[in-house]
């Protein structure tokens, strides 16, 4: 077995026999993630240690692990921020959860609860926000994760664990802004029917809006209509986009398109007094060009949105369970983590990759 590098926080182990957990960690910005057994140094008073059942893979994981966001990223690095699991252990001060509770984690690890933004309820914008994974903290590509109770979510009864982990990032990312800006009977345009978009179509339809899916794939009409879209239209054909100008009360864009004319046409789908929501972002330092003339003359809002706050995330979980909104997933075994990551990195997944962590963890004695 190769000699694994030490981590600043977690205590690397020679094998899983002595470990609290086994992660799949990147050792550099290239190559595959490898198994990384480790012990937790401690469990803080307010920490919840979770046995992960299923982990979703998100493209953010690539951007992080390959050093595309932060070229100075420290390795070993363990990403993953779409977690569904059950409580294994709690710190002495934990009151919200008990051992055995079904819980989830979203991309946020910490909120201060004292700053103005937290008090307003927008903890995802908290000045002290920490991501679920970073240089110091391992994320969901692991058999376990340990997070402060304030950022742990209750998984509602009847939730489909095997399908639901991607909701903790992809789901809330589209649910939160749709819910924030929608009205029933609104017309809604969803641009880009991929990981985010196929969930946005479902949520928008279940919220009572009439949904048009904007996509490049005309041959997926039946499948996309089954998700709740009433119509399909082209996301890149300028003439076709012009014909749809001003028709949609809400536009949610999961894409970034380099062609300026096409991208402005996306903004112009927005109806007067409507809202355009941007959730897709390119990895590099690219600028969003505001179509200011259209924005002013039609009095529209162009809004960015980042995952969701605590309440929005919790609400999304309940809404999803009640309305049967789940992603279409490809499921992999724990030891197929590298394969799952590769499929996601190459954007081949339809639509989200999920790893069945719990099965391997239990079979390999990691549930202590």
């Amino acid at each position, binding site marked *: 077995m190769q000699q694994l590098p030490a981590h600043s926080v977690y205590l690397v182990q020679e094998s899983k026999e002595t470990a609290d957990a086994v992660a799949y960690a990147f050792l550099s910005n290239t190559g595959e993630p490898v198994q990384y057994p480790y012990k937790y140094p401690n469990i803080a008073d307010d920490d919840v240690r979770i046995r992960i059942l299923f982990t979703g893979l998100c493209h953010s994981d690539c951007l992080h692990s390959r050093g595309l966001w932060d070229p100075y990223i420290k390795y070993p690095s363990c990403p993953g921020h779409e977690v569904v699991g059950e409580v294994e252990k709690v710190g002495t001060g934990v009151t919200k959860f008990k051992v055995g509770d079904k819980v989830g984690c979203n991309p946020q690890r910490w909120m201060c609860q004292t700053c103005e933004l937290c008090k307003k309820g927008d903890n995802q914008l908290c000045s002290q926000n920490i991501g679920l994974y970073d240089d110091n903290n391992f994320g969901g590509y692991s058999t376990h994760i340990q997070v402060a109770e304030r950022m742990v979510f209750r998984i509602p009864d009847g939730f489909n664990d095997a399908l639901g982990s991607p909701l903790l990032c992809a789901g809330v990312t589209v649910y939160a802004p749709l819910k924030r800006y929608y009205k029933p009977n609104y017309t809604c345009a969803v641009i880009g029917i991929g990981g985010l978009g196929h969930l946005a179509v479902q949520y928008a339809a279940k919220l009572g809006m009439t949904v048009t899916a904007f996509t490049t794939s005309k041959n997926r009409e039946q499948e996309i209509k089954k998700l709740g879209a009433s119509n399909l239209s082209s996301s890149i054909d300028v003439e076709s986009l012009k014909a749809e100008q001003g028709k949609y009360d809400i536009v949610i864009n999961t894409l970034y398109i380099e062609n300026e004319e096409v991208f402005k046409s996306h903004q112009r789908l927005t109806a007067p007094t409507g809202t355009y929501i941007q959730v897709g972002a390119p990895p590099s*330092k690219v600028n969003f060009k505001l179509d200011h*003339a259209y924005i002013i003359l039609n009095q529209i809002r162009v809004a960015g949105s*980042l995952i969701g706050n605590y309440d929005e995330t919790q609400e999304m979980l309940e809404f999803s369970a009640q309305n049967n909104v789940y992603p279409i997933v490809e499921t992999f075994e724990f030891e197929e983590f590298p394969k799952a990551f590769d499929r996601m990195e190459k954007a081949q997944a339809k639509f989200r990759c999920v790893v069945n962590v719990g099965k391997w963890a239990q079979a390999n004695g990691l549930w202590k």
Partner: protein
Amino acid sequence: MATKEHSLYKLVTKEQAEAFAWSFEGPNTEALLYPFVFPPIQPHEVRIQQTYFGLCYTDCHLVNQDWFPINYPSVPGHEILGHVVMKGDQVTQFQIGDLVGAGFIRDSCGNCKLCIQGNDQLCGQKGDEHFIPLPKFGGFATHVQFPAKWAFPIPNTIPQHLAPPLLCAGITVFAPLKRYFNPNKEVAIIGIGGLGHLAIKFSAAMGMRTSAISTSPDKEQEAKSYGAIDFIVSKNPEQMAKALGRFDIILSCAHASTVEEFIDQTKLLKNGGDFIMVGIPALTKVELQLPFYSLVCRQISFVGSLVGSRQENYEMIEFANKHKIYPTCEEYEFENFKTAYDKLLNGRPKYRCVVKVGNAPQTLKQ
């Protein structure tokens, strides 16, 4: 004197004229005196004899085709104030002699979703009849004729020589401030000019903590006299650094001249804040753009606002009257319109040019 005739307004001799306009026969040309008669007044219209009218840079953009091609001759102008001298049969809300004002919007249908929801300034059903300054004759004239629906009664407690800019500049900043108003919000007004100086007054009078952001350090006292609690010089990196993430609302009343300047402005917005845009620069001007990362991960919004609905106009007039909010104006005689227009186009008026019509309708006949 004008030579190009408009299809609706018969060009006549001075002696025969019902009214006099200042018309433009091409982009980047001088205004020419245009004596004319109106088409027959329609049942829903009023004809106003103006006392004073205002000039707005939008009029320059229109005349010079900065946004789209227009037909000539063009008589823009959309800060209108005067007395009703004629009205159509269906007009019941006004009497001859009433003092009224009008702004950028000429007409709305009243039946579409936007009208019914109270956003009648956005009504798209009226085609060529939507806006006052074109293609029909607008406010650069002794008289204006337009639907009574978009005429607003003006209380006689508002000084007439200061009132016209309220009908465009005033409503342009009042409407979004009111729409996004919250007593706990920190507001920043960027640009202390025609729009900005009124915005500071309105925002402060609404009770919001209002700061002014300007390139000119010497406007500080003035900004504070309008009610600003703080003054930030945008060219001062230290002051800008201190103000990072400070404001819930930024109302931009001045165009950033570079992308970097625009990005620096957006950095003053709190996460989750609203950046309100009201002024449309020439389409060739630098684009307003910012890193995707900032838009998405800071969850900020850019919201547009276009003048205001009729309801918002009534409220603005009442609010301005109650709080004595008036613009700072430079006054010109009707005969010197070209000087006023040139000052607006090429100079830096402080802060709005207003033309006194006075008895020009009589004196020009001679």
